[in-house]
């Protein structure tokens, strides 16, 4: 399966990009995706962030169904 991943704020700086396509061997939960992502970008391990699936903040147990847009959201700073 494959899906879009978007990085924002400090996470985009760590990743060095703001968008990429994620390719996984089989089905993934949000938690499994998070683990793969932290393997790829170890510097994100000590950062706080939430994961949104199709613009909704998601729990780790949720299964990602394609097509999906996954976003990594650091702490909000509006205002």
């Amino acid at each position, binding site marked *: 399966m494959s899906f879009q991943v*978007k990085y*924002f704020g400090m996470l985009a700086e760590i990743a060095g990009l703001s968008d990429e396509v994620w390719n996984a061997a089989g089905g993934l939960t949000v938690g499994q995706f998070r683990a793969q992502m932290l393997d790829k970008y170890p510097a994100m391990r000590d950062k706080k962030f939430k994961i949104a699936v199709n*613009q909704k903040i998601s729990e780790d147990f949720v299964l990602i169904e394609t097509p999906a847009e996954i976003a990594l959201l*650091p*702490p*909000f700073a*509006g*205002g």
Partner: protein
Amino acid sequence: MEKAHKPKKVFVQGPISPDFVAKSIASHQSKTGIGAHAIFLGQIRADQKEGGLVTGIDYTAYEEMAEQAFHNIREAAFAKFELTCMHIYHSLGLVPTGEISLFVFVSSPHRRAAFEASEYIVEEIKANVPIFGKELVGDAGFIWKENT
């Protein structure tokens, strides 16, 4: 022209000017059921950080999700409070210290609804809208801002 088709557009590039606020107020003087306006303005502080003074904040957002979040906040506020009008504007890009990055404007027949809605909306924006802020510090440093 674009404005007319997207009346709920929230994001503006750069700071929000006092003149824009004045124009918004003036445009409500024909709505004679309004008795109370409550306006909240967020202004960039020159906080002292380790690396120097904050000189501005560079805002980015997950724009599609943010517009949806603003829409949800708007709908919830209209449902909760007796409001005649509601307008929300937030900056993207660089807003220098001393300038305005958030403009929340609610109008109601009566003051209580205006006060309550103003607070509600600002708190919801701070907590639930995916906007990110890079505080520029001193000559070259920065700190990622985090709402509390």
